[in-house]
């Protein structure tokens, strides 16, 4: 508790804001989500196109779904996709990057050529290709795996160059002279460096994965049964919620996406500033 108090005192405004927003969304997506409720995807559960009321804080859709619970489910799934993609991307990225940076030689070159290939292949067309051709039942996991295909290459490149620079630093040489093995050096000296970077990369990857999923959804290519923020926007668009002025329906996933994105983003930049400030001390 004291540690947290200290952290909170030192944290800048953005970090605080980002943290609050992110925690708020996690509560919505992973705690509120588990409050028992009717499956929000089912059509004609309620009357159609209702406005906001006590029973339906955000009204209902044109298919008679409750917007509030649909939104909670969408936040849950979008966050889940984002987290899975970010986790895979970061873990694979850090692993490949470290391996390549420290092994050097032929292994390094091979790994980097493969990594570069994934960096140069344009991701959106391939994602469109994958999702449009993916056989049917794309679940949260499958969707996340597809998105993760492109999430590891960039971090692994960054981590590699990071480890190359770190490798040349004095303290590594010192460690080496004092007889530490490579693995030990990686774990004790380099991983901490990579980890702080990875944390901010993790948040960034979460953000971009949610973004990619919503782009695909807006193109009509996200799985039809996946309640995600992007799909929710797309459904509302398909039922012409914009011009029919069903603002709560179209607006709530948009506002949620924007706030979630800004929150996550503030968290990243605030966190980076916080780190650099801490280092400065």
């Amino acid at each position, binding site marked *: 508790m004291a540690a947290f108090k200290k952290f909170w005192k030192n944290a800048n405004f*953005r970090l605080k804001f980002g943290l609050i927003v992110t925690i708020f969304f996690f509560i919505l997506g992973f705690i509120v989500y588990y409050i028992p409720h009717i499956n929000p995807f089912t059509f004609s559960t309620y009357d159609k196109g209702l406005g906001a009321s006590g029973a339906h804080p955000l009204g209902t859709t044109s298919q008679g779904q409750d917007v509030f619970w649909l939104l909670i489910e969408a936040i849950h799934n979008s966050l889940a996709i984002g987290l899975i993609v970010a986790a895979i991307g970061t873990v694979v990225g850090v692993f490949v990057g470290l391996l390549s940076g420290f092994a050097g030689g032929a292994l390094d*070159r091979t790994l*980097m*050529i*493969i990594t*570069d*290939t994934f*960096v*140069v*292949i*344009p*991701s*959106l*067309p*391939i994602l*469109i*290709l*994958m999702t*449009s*051709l*993916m*056989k049917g039942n794309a679940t949260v996991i499958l969707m996340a795996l597809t998105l993760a295909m492109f999430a590891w290459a960039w971090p692994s490149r960054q981590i590699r160059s990071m480890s190359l620079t770190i490798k040349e630093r004095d303290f590594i040489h010192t460690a080496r002279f004092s007889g530490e093995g490579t693995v030990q050096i990686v774990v004790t000296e380099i991983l901490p460096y990579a980890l702080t970077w990875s944390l901010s990369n993790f948040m960034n990857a979460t*953000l971009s994965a949610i*973004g990619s999923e*919503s*782009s695909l959804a*807006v*193109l009509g290519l996200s799985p039809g049964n996946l309640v995600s923020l992007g799909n929710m926007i797309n459904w509302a668009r398909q039922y012409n919620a*914009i011009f029919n002025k069903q603002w709560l329906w179209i607006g709530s996933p*948009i506002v949620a*996406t*924007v706030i979630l*994105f*800004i929150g*996550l*983003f*503030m968290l990243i*930049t605030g966190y*980076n500033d916080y780190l*650099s400030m801490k280092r*400065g001390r």
Partner: protein
Amino acid sequence: MKFKTFFLQRVLAWALTIWIGVTFIFFIPRMFPSSPVESMIAQMTSRMGNLQPEQVQALQKQLSIQFGLEGSLWEQYVSFLWNGLLHFDFGPSLMSYPEPVGNIIGTYLPYTLFLSLFSTLVAWLLGNFIGLLAGFRKNARSSKILEGIAICIYPIPYFLVALVLQILFCFVWRVFPLQANIKLSADFATWFGSLVWASILPAISLLLLGTGWWIISMKSLAGTTAEEDFVMFARYRGLSEATIGRSYVLRNSILTQITALAMSLGGVFGGSIMTEIIFGYPGVGTLIQNAILQADYNMILGTITISIVAISTATLIVDLVYPFIDPRIRYS
């Protein structure tokens, strides 16, 4: 000597990257359950009502011969490597048969390039300029405001920004036409005028998001550099802030940004899909999307191969030129 080895190694890696990339692109569409022949027949069925079985069989045979899909996968692959990769001849578009893919891309590519290069470069310059100011003069109010704006806009999903712009400027205020109308057959001035006019709104949408990213990344780079010892020393030496900003901070942070620019230049193909769809702007992005949806193998290969070659070449050039800009880097 050292440069030569580095050069050769780098070029070899470049060639390998492209090869792996296009091989990937060649096999992926063919591994999935979709075929241009069935796609074509389905289109005809949905228009003309149920075709008769004999008609369907006849079409299946005829189309696979026409589309060059009758050989084995391996034969198709070899012929693609030879014609497509080495001669940039991707064969006819299957959906716009028999128009060659090369011709179609040639017609649309300039528009994508015009819009994307222009907006990417402007965003880069603008973003770096603001980012430099924000990072260097961390506590000035103007830099804080600019950065705040960037942070609020950058995370907004692109299609939202584009949609809002379109609704406001084309529908509510009716400043711009709803669909880009580029007068290609008119004289040069009219054509160029209509091109610029059609590009303004898409460009603004791209700038809004692009600039935000560059501000943010430049700011953090400049911020880090500004805290480095040599900047402190420069301050102690009494150099003016402008000189420090220009000769120390900018020069040191811009290198990273140049690499990032090269990477993003290559990304213009994929990135333009949403822009083109929403603003009805002609370009390669729409080609890619339609090709994928209709399983037009040749068009998919053509557009994505060009994109892959462009990005890898851009990074290759940057890597080769880098040491000339930054003497600290050695070829290694």
